[in-house]
């Protein structure tokens, strides 16, 4: 049962524009969310995270928004650059379940930023 869903397998955006990647989750016990970026032949790399006590976290060009009532989060990349082209994974954790570092991942969204 997929508890973290990324319903858009791919997204294409022009350089300089905003990229918006979406993620939905079903488990209301999730209280920490992360976005990872993955290039081919490399492992996922941490990008940005957000705790459930916040609704927004910003780091440079990357902003994550969390809507707990809708069980939805989104990653905004502004402005998008060709080097941002990669697969982006949304992941969630339930710290209360003594889950340690067990992350629940979505299937990923492949972002292509065109010049």
């Amino acid at each position, binding site marked *: 049962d997929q508890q973290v869903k990324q319903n858009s397998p791919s997204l294409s955006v022009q350089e300089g524009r905003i990229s918006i990647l979406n993620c939905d989750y079903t488990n209301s016990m999730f209280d920490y969310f*992360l976005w990872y970026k993955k290039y081919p032949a490399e492992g996922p790399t*941490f990008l940005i995270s957000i705790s459930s006590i916040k609704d927004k976290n910003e780091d440079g060009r990357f902003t994550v928004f969390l809507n707990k009532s809708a069980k939805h989060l989104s990653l905004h990349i502004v402005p998008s650059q060709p080097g941002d082209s990669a697969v982006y994974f949304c992941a969630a954790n339930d710290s209360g379940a*003594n889950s*340690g*570092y067990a992350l629940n991942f979505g299937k990923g969204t492949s972002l292509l930023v065109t010049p």
Partner: protein
Amino acid sequence: DAGVTQSPTHLIKTRGQQVTLRCSPKSGHDTVSWYQQALGQGPQFIFQYYEEEERQRGNFPDRFSGHQFPNYSSELNVNALLLGDSALYLCASSLFGGGLYEQYFGPGTRLTVT
């Protein structure tokens, strides 16, 4: 400073065989987690090792087992391989008690079962 390393890079095995994958954590890390990423899917948590013990386990059968050594490196063993075990196996290391965002992933081992 070497990051997380995994070996081998690629592996081809026959159904029914056994396989061992290896992971060396990032320097200073003491916890290792293993994930399976099937084609077109996100990584799925297999288990986590800390202080040479399995601390947490995901929804994987007993055919999947692991080990952590005193130097914190780890092995993932899969017995009685099935075609469905074909996947990218990712190792992630961290410092126990550190933030989730401080978990670093290796490049993975691509296992093909024929």
